């Protein structure tokens, strides 16, 4: 392959975000970052769209509502028991079951969406990972052509990288 990996290590999220912006301005899109916490500055620099996991949670929540109504109303019709002369489908108490199932299925589906979309469990290490990136350093890993490599290195250094190393 005619490509190389360049790994920049930064002491702050601001420097890392600056480097991301520089790399994107140079129209290089094959990169990823590492950070010890979810950095809004880096996310804004990458211009990440909102995670679609929220739609999965919404669908889960709606499924919970429908399940709650189906279970409570359906079983009432299954066995028509007159309790105290009240209407057969006396729905106000069913709201509790419906509400709890909405939260339950919404939460479970959101969690599963998180695992699936973020690639967890991951059995392979993302390229350029270094244990310091979970501790106190922010990492930017750029994959580019050999011709662009010098330019990318200088971009990362200009943005404030403490260390820039070249991989394969």
């Amino acid at each position: 392959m005619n490509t190389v990996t360049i790994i920049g290590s930064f002491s702050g999220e601001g420097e890392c975000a600056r480097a991301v912006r520089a790399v994107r301005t140079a129209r290089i899109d094959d990169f990823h970052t590492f950070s010890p916490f979810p950095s809004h500055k880096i996310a804004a620099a990458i211009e990440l769209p909102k995670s679609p996991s929220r739609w999965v949670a919404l669908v889960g929540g709606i499924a919970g509502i429908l399940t709650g109504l189906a279970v409570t109303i359906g079983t009432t019709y299954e066995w028509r028991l007159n309790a105290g002369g009240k209407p057969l489908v006396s729905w106000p108490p069913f709201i509790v079951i419906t509400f709890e199932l909405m939260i339950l299925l919404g939460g479970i589906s959101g969690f599963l969406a998180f695992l699936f979309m973020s690639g967890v469990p991951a059995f392979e290490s993302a390229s350029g990972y270094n244990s310091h990136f979970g501790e106190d350093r922010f990492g930017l890993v750029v994959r580019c052509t050999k011709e662009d490599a010098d330019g990318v290195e200088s971009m990362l250094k200009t943005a404030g990288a403490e260390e820039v190393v070249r991989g394969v």
Partner: protein
Amino acid sequence: MAAAPKEVIQPDFRAIDRGVLRAMEPAGRAYWIWVASCFTLVAIAAGFWLRQIYEGLGVTGLRQPVNWAVYITNFVFWVGIAHSGTLISAILFLFRTRWRTAVYRAAETMTIFAVATAGLFPLIHLGRVWFFYWLLPYPNERSLQPDFRSPLVWDAFAVSTYLTVSSLFWTMGLIPDVANAREAATGWRKKFYTIVAMGWQGTDRQWRHFSMVYLLMAGLATPLVISVHSVVSWDFAMAQLPGWHSTIFAPYFVAGAIFSGVAMVITLLVPMRKLLKLEELLTPWHFDNLAKVILLTSLIVSYSYATETFMTWYAGDPIEQMTFQMRYFGPWGWMFWMMVLCNCLIPLLLFSPRIRVNLRALWVISIFVNIGMWLERFVIIAGSLKVNTIPSQWGPYVPSITEIMITVGSFAWFLGLFSLFAKFMPIVSMTEMKEGIVWLRAALKRGYSTGA
């Protein structure tokens, strides 16, 4: 709220990791003696439970009319303890409250183990525990489902949902921290943390989905926590019994739950801070804020007691008035006044800023609150049953050794599980501490108050 003092934003990221990971270093002999003692008590309590299953509920002090007493009191007490964990981890997260970062993991862990303890009590209280599945939406041989109008069925749904969603929320927050622990660990611990961290590396893709789902989970957990204790209160309020049948119960129980839960957080955190050497991360500022939550909820609880009394007088129902007269001045009146002392009067000391940051005083106050809140549930549950509508129905109740030992065992179970977690998993969230400190420093630079 008071601004964050300088020492809160002092530790750099490495100091945070060092502090949390040091707490996870192999434990000494005293720790293992403590954990072994806890689980020995659990084993003894399990023996009493086995005897109760074999002999029947006759080995307890439960008799007509007092059919619900210590076991159900324990259930409500432990569900209540759980609530402050979700308040701190989810509700204060949505409000972007920065002081929560240092204490939320411990509080949330407390939630999980408290719900796991609470969930045992409805089972222990069943005479024939093997029929517990009758509460689940599972039809019997005549295809008759449980009655979904019954608050007991609501409770089964609410508590199991609460345990599931809280566990998922807790697990999510743990993943990045365990990944950090994985990098520093050696031997079997490294293998263990590698499995639990599930290959987390903190890439932008992972954080993107993490942030969204974490926010959603907090959004789901917030109404959930309010609903769970409301449902627990309806176990009583839906019944026609004087002393139980009251519309004020849901907010009153939720405030009481947060009150007792925050007290339990302080009861656990004060010794843990010292034993695990977390002084740098858990500062008096954090305790000051927790104490303010106790003070606020204490005032709400006191107001609820007063409203309940006023409504009983104002409604003019003689049977209800007799129930309350017996509650205040009957043979168990001392419990009521002890409860007032612990829940309404002693917490007033927290108006003093000096007491709020005096950890010893705060610890003692938190224990009084725990005692007071246990008594509150006992007074409401057993006290109202004891004095029924017709004096000829009144009956005595004395807890038996079985109930006492199972209660002691439940505290040992909770403390043993919490102690194991505190030593083997990150008890302070490194990820959120780092995020919080970056925010506080930036806010200070802009000249804003950092109290939020």
